[in-house]
């Protein structure tokens, strides 16, 4: 028999109780009156400050708690209640590691296996009108960001026209690409979706990194445009 503090979970009143540790149950008494009796198998420990053992009864919907500060009583309770730390059993780190790894593998499989397959199957099914819409949406943004920097001088445009016509004849006559030239320091090109007509290809005229043979046609374009639309 030793003193502890009991909160019944019904009111905020603090009740000083005596605890009787028996083989089968913790008897909780307030004076002569028995307040509660918790079977030892159902007693669980909760997080509490150092020096305090806070107990609850498993499964009970009430928030009743028993705070034990007496070291001897704590030892007696630890002796008889064998399942104090059991609530954490289902949250063991190994389980968490395993299931997160499983979830990650599933996500990775989706991204690297399913998505490419899906993309391959679905690409032919996407109507050209939808591709055009996508292309227009991005095209609007590019034109807003680079307004005034797109080459529109007649000489440059005519040079570009000659060039793209030659490039197209040399490759696939089916594809009709709409090419525009941007004044930008960043060496880059954007190809937009939208089928033959609405495709737009932007690139810079100051691109030093086009030395390999496959870029020669482009290099030639550059020189042509440089003479055509000197700013």
């Amino acid at each position, binding site marked *: 028999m030793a003193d502890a*503090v009991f*909160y*019944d*979970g*019904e*009111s*905020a*009143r*603090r*009740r*000083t109780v005596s605890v009787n540790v028996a083989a089968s149950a913790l008897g909780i008494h307030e004076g002569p009156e028995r307040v509660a009796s918790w079977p030892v198998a159902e007693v669980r420990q*909760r*997080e*509490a*400050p*150092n*020096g*305090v053992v*806070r107990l609850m009864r498993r499964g009970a919907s*009430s*928030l*009743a*708690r028993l*705070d034990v*500060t007496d070291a001897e009583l704590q030892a007696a309770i630890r002796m008889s209640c064998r399942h104090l730390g059991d609530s954490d059993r289902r*949250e063991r*780190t190994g389980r*968490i*590691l395993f*299931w*997160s*790894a499983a*979830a*990650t593998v599933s996500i990775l499989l989706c991204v690297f296996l399913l998505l490419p397959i899906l993309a391959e199957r679905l690409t032919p099914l996407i109507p050209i009108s939808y591709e055009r*819409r*996508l292309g*227009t*949406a*991005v095209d*609007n*943004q590019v*034109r*807003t960001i680079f307004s005034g920097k797109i080459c529109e001088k007649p000489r440059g445009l005519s040079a570009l026209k000659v060039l793209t016509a030659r490039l197209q004849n040399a490759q696939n006559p089916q594809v009709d690409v709409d090419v525009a030239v941007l004044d930008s320091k960043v060496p880059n090109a954007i190809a937009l979706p939208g089928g033959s007509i609405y495709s737009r290809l932007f690139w810079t005229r100051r691109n030093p990194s086009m030395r390999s043979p496959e870029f020669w046609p482009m290099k030639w374009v550059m020189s042509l445009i440089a003479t055509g639309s000197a700013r």
Partner: protein
Amino acid sequence: MTASLHADGTLPASQSSPMSFSGQGREFLRLLITGSLFQIPTFGFYRFWLTTKLRRHLWANTQIEGEAFEYTGTAKELLIGFLIALAVLVPLYVAYAILGVILEEQYAFASVPLVVIMYVLAHFGSYRARKYRASRTMFRGIRFWMKGSGWPYAFRAVLWDLSTVLTLGLALPWAMASLERYRMCNTYFGNVQGDIAGTGWSLFKRGWWVWALGLVGLICFALLAFVLSKLSVGRGERALQVIPFLLILVGLALLPLAMAIFTRWHIDGLRFGDVTAASGFRAGTYYGLFFKLIFSSIGFLVAFGLVGGLLGFLFATVFKGVMTAPECFSWTSVSAGLLVAIGYLIALLGLGVLQRYFLGRGLWAAIVSSTAITNLQSIDAAVAAGEPAGVLGEGLADALDFNVGI
């Protein structure tokens, strides 16, 4: 620990009971570091368990007159909340993408205002998250809980944000007071309703000079920018680029002050029935934590850079010979990439640990131990009421990365 309490649990009338924080910094740091490291192999899923453990620690070590709070939430609830939030957000993002394409087709950047939806949702989520936290907080065997709905709160918050922006921050005290009133008047301890005694005017009186200082700084820099832009090109242009940086610096210097004033106002105003609170929180404490965070982050990054550079150098010299062999090339490059990715993760997690340690735990402990509660005995009569709230809000706040505290 219970020496100051009478045997029957009553205290003399209007006695002041100091709050205290008994948690060990080392213990919190251990939880934080192991939890952060577990996030690497679990690809971040461990954060629900980490958050729950940290909250349990903080709540359990927060005491009024030796009586500790308790956090009853579980990690599984947070995980489910996150999944529910995904179920809400994924269709929303898909609809957003489709609507975005349709709008952009008409006019460039027409879809940008759609971000507003996320912003409203974030306010909604923050209220619901607070509701969840309150109903998982227990004191003396009684649950805190909240009434009220996330939507009216989000509506108010959006209107107040708008008026704050339009008045250059002048409306901020009233905005904070109004939102805090909504939150606190809907918060209950059992059957005892909470309230806030502070008003927007009282908050303004405490903090107007910080606002004025910030405004003066803003005007000065605007004038400076104007003068510099009139000057000849070259030097003036370079000086112009420094101004935003200086502005951020001024903001950072004033922020702890403003936060400290708000914290004191907030805690001084807290009411639960006849229970009142008083705060002795000082701005100096806030600045101390802020500087500790900044300097420890810099120290961490320098140390990390040194170790990373050394490892990279070693890696390069060891594998120099191997790199030339064509069949081994892919494996070394893959492992190098993996090492870089892990290093990047460790740097991010390290910064997160420091932030949570100083601004999470440090601030919590400082605020708790500078607070005193009066008339605690009046809650003896409180009777249990309220139900645990749902987890959607926590999930939304997590998924939208909307910071709602620890």
